[in-house]
């Protein structure tokens, strides 16, 4: 049924207002240990898609959804324990420090965080680990959630606009982390920045009018080429 794929979605429809679907008959397959970039114009439905996968929306219908060969419900605890989401806009747990947040998330997932000191160093976050999240700037807040995500190492890591707000050093470090994540699992990430997707992805899915209209893989993933196709 799922041909060894990690996640299979067939004909996903999502709407906020009945009769006005944001995503319509969207189908997607995610393999194991790959990086998939999701691009699309503003309003194409990238964040809606990610929120649906996260179980935050309930106004959707999906013909078939499979996770590791089993029927998938987005709000199932088993699925939640296998995936972590970094949202584009996140202001959660503002009265925790980063270390408290990370330890709370680790306890929620029932696992230990690995390589966290290395990640803190890589993202230049040493000064902010014991500061309340509400006191952090946009970029540092994003780093807090990204470090937690990479230290948690879930099978599926979903990143919505992960580059937004990061300085150039941290952006490059993020690219390294995304590229080397294949050994732990799969990353699905959305971005407006073509270069970030081209540098890191095995496959690029283009979201247009609520559907995955085009896919690029291997040698096809070049910023100029994708840009040309998008202009058509």
């Amino acid at each position, binding site marked *: 049924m799922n041909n060894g794929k990690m996640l299979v979605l067939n004909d996903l429809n999502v709407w906020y207002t009945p009769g006005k679907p944001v995503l319509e008959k969207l189908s997607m397959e995610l393999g194991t240990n790959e990086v998939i970039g999701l691009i699309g114009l503003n309003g194409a439905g990238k964040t809606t898609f990610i929120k649906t996968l996260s179980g*935050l929306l309930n106004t959707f219908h999906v013909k078939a959804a499979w996770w590791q060969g089993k029927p998938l419900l987005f709000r199932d605890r088993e699925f939640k324990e296998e995936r972590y989401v970094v949202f584009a806009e996140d202001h959660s747990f503002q009265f925790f*420090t980063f270390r*408290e947040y990370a330890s709370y998330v680790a306890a929620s*997932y029932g696992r230990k965080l690995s390589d966290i000191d290395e990640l803190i160093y890589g993202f230049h976050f040493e000064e902010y680990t014991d*500061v309340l999240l509400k006191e952090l700037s946009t970029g540092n807040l994003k780093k807090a959630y990204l470090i937690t995500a990479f230290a948690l190492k879930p099978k599926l890591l979903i990143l919505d606009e992960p580059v937004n707000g990061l300085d150039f050093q941290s952006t490059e470090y993020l690219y390294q982390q995304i590229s080397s994540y294949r050994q732990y699992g799969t990353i699905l990430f959305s971005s407006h920045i073509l270069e970030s997707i081209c540098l890191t992805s095995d496959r690029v899915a283009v979201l247009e009018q609520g559907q995955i209209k085009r896919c690029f893989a291997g040698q096809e993933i070049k910023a100029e080429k994708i840009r040309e196709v998008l202009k058509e």
Partner: protein
Amino acid sequence: MIIFQNLSKQLFGAKYERAVKSLIACIILFLAIHTAGIEIAIAPSILLLTATAFSMGIMWQTLNSSENADRMTGLFMLPFRNREMTFSLVLAFTSYTLITKTFFVLALFFAVHEWSVLQIAVSLLCACNSCFSAAAWYTMKKRKKFLPVYLLWGGAIFAPIFLVRETMIICFIAFTSMLISFLRLLKVDAYVFYHPVSAKLLIKHTKGTGSIFLYLLRYLITNKNYLLNTAGLCVIAGAMPFILGQFEGVNVMPLGFAVLCLNTPICILLSCDPGLEQAVRTLPGQAKRFCTNYCFFIFSINMAVNSVYLISWQIGKSGVNSTEIIIALIITLQSAILSVLLEWFCPVRNWKIENDLWHHPRKYIVPLIMFLIAGLIGMWSISIWVLLCIVIAECFSLSLIVRRI
């Protein structure tokens, strides 16, 4: 005018639909109570006092709301004329306060008592004056000698309502106060209403372990409104035995526990914080990890307030026995469980400013249930043991359910 329209649309919706809904709700409330024939004798001074004090408090809260910074950033970025900005802000917030909050209370007053047209007009005038005065006071809050001004000005507004009770004098004072507010607002810098989050010295917390109880405690301590509400309830808890103790022959003590469950701000923490709600819905196992701790947090805070009530009862009245402590535990635990269940299954969403949350009717569902329970216990003391069994069964079944979510 453009600034006023822009702000009004942000507060009332693109087509002012919220204003229309509020007005319709006021009319329905008025007609429902009036048709039911409920009549209560109310002195005119109470009507004027309520219109003034309630509107003043709401206007102050609205101006102080932390959401205003986000709402106004775009407005203040554009070039504007200072006076136009000031008066647009004050008028928009005044309209918001009157239409969505004050009119509800006034509709209630108008429904239960026959008022003359003059009295209705004066109450509206008092409400408008209190909004303008609150705005004028708000512009002075960072001045060193603001307290005497508040006391003098406030005294001038409230004294005629309490002491003189002459309509003409009250109207004269209201008009004068509005004129002074107008003159004050002519001179102020509009930026006084804009309070963005300023950069602060970063304080390090090195001993935390990711405990939700600690998290919620920080939330409570940081938020002045929540703290004030809790402190206010402690004061009420201390005084209540002396008020309730006057009723002879009826067990009114449980009513006190129900009143002290009115610490509603701490019962809407998920509704208040959409970011936190998003995270709690996204992370696994939060029904157990977050909700259980949240329930324990509400229980602890309410039980602390109840302890003041019990101590006060012990000192001032006949003493407290173990059954009464059990009643306190039942009501407090039941209130905490219901509050968390409501937050989990139907949080308040789509609110515009914090004020909407603080006065949302959903907040009062749990206290209402607690009043019914307290009444039940007051009438049939045997129901204590039935309720105790229900609460224990609830805790047991919920602890099993949350492990699976």
